[in-house]
């Protein structure tokens, strides 16, 4: 049988997607369908062959009966809502600074990636654990706020300030990947745009608002989505809770755990869709250029 050129191209597409399609069947579609089914059922003795349909009972349990889920969920949501804009803005500004032609920028760029090497690992969790235990990170204490000043300001205000610096430090450690991605985005903006603006007498300040910021819209979108996804999917109170109910107890609650996982996922999906909608216009403007 002889295939025409376009037919050949079509079949080649499937050839290239084949490994992924196999993977998608086993690691995406199957788990999705299974966990939806699981989340609306009840298991008898955790035997997966004996599933009973119970409707939305598990979902209701998460919101109505379970006293732990909602507070944990809200903590993660507020943390993400506060941290995401901070990470994105901080990474953007840092990327602009190291994208300038300064001495030692290579060293700075390498340094900013260091926490990523430890980022998902255990040391960072230990360090972040410090802040939960003692109320502040050592790096945020003392160095940024001298003891004399602390004594002068009084306990309450110092508490707020250290909490603020705490968050900033955690934000900084969480922004290594974003800095690298933003750097790539900023450096790909055509230099001609800046030259034209300079000839027309624009200041650095104006060029930032009129060129750098709008031209970075696509990369900002990528970073925001990545940050939200990373913050929700990384280790958090909710995630640890879900896992502990499924794997950490003598009597695993698989069905309930799946239901909470779905509540969590639907929320993440909603937030990300919202971001896409909000960023649609500025991103399209760059794409149409």
């Amino acid at each position, binding site marked *: 049988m002889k295939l025409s050129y376009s037919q*050949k*191209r*079509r079949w*080649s*597409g*499937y050839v*290239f*997607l084949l*490994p*992924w399609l*196999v*993977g998608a069947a*086993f*690691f*995406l579609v*199957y*788990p999705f369908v*299974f966990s939806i089914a*699981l989340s609306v059922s009840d298991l008898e003795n955790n035997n997966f062959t004996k599933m009973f349909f119970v409707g939305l009972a598990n979902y209701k349990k998460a919101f109505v009966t379970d006293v732990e889920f909602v507070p944990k969920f809200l903590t993660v949501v507020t943390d993400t809502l506060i941290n995401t804009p901070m990470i994105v803005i901080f990474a953007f500004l840092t990327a602009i*600074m190291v994208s*300038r032609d*300064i001495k030692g920028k*290579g060293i*700075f760029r*390498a340094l*900013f*990636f*260091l926490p990523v*090497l*430890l*980022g*998902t*690992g*255990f*040391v960072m969790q*230990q*360090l972040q654990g410090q802040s939960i235990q003692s109320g502040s990170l*050592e*790096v945020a204490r003392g160095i940024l706020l001298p003891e004399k000043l602390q004594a002068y300001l009084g306990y309450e205000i110092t508490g707020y300030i250290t909490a603020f610096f705490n968050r900033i430090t955690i934000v*900084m450690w969480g922004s290594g990947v974003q800095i*690298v*991605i933003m*750097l*790539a*985005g900023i450096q790909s903006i055509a230099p001609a745009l800046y030259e034209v603006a300079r000839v027309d007498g624009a200041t650095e300040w104006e060029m930032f608002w009129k060129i750098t910021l709008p031209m970075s819209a*696509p990369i900002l979108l*990528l970073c925001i*989505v*990545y940050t939200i996804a990373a913050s*929700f*999917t990384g280790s958090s109170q909710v*995630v640890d809770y879900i*896992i502990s109910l*499924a*794997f950490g107890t003598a009597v695993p609650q698989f069905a309930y*755990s799946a239901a909470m*996982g779905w509540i*969590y*996922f639907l929320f*993440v999906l909603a937030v990300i869709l919202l971001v896409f909608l909000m960023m649609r216009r500025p991103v399209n403007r760059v794409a149409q250029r």
Partner: protein
Amino acid sequence: MKGFLLQGKNLSRLRGRLKSALLVRIAVYLLLVDLAFVFAYPFLYMMVTSLKSPQDVRDITVNWLPSGLHWNNYRLSFSLLGYPSALARTVLVVGGCTLGHLFSCSFVGYGFARFSFRGKSLFFLLLLLSIIVPVQTIIVPEYIFFSGAGFLGTYLPMMVPSWLGFGLSGGLFIFIFRLFYISLPRSLEEAAGIDGCGAVSTFFRIALPASRSSVMVCLVLSLVWHWNDYFEPLIYITQQKKYLLPMLLPGLYRIMGGMQDASLSGGDALGDIYTEAVAMAATFLVVLPLLIAYLFLQKKFVQGVERSGITGE
């Protein structure tokens, strides 16, 4: 018009501009050095703590300068981790996963970028979904699947998904490769096609070698994320003798902390040797291979990011 720029008002304006540029530059440097300290802090903290003697650990006045370099911590943690064999296991598994990611994600990314076929937009939607779905949502069915397949207790639950474009952030890497191949000019590949080169061999001979920059980005990220991951392996592997390096750390911290506290309350003499510092030394040993790899890859990685086309140009 001669000397127009350097006269009177213009001259002073120019001077003012130069001065403010200098001030901005100094401010930027100060800020960068300050930031660099915060970013380097975890590493500095880890290295200093790992060299503290047990007395130093208990002495809260010893902050940045230990009384001496207490290398014994490293000797202890080396044997506690079973370093040589654990390292070999970790290198094999992480290497296998990373290689799988590079192969499968570039291959699939090329398919998404270059061909049009029925169902492509649906598949692309699924790809986006695979990026944002938390592992935790689907871990239970995965576990049941792998236990049914008899993969529990082996490294296959980490390996198999990464060779099929899934696993840790597989979707993100496909996305990065796809953006790169979209921005790559088609002319070379078309020339190869006219010369009778099939699509698959065109990919391996022309497109893949051209995408070195994206390969670097995905190589570093995949390597780092796989090396540090201990969440999934801990679920699938239960035998301690099969543990990978990072999986050993949580237990070590618990035990070391316990011994340290026990000796503080005057109970256990073991706490005179085993302290938090030993756990820190172990942590350093765990990330050391990663550090060395990063030192080698760093320059190419940063260059790669700049040229990878993640920017969608």
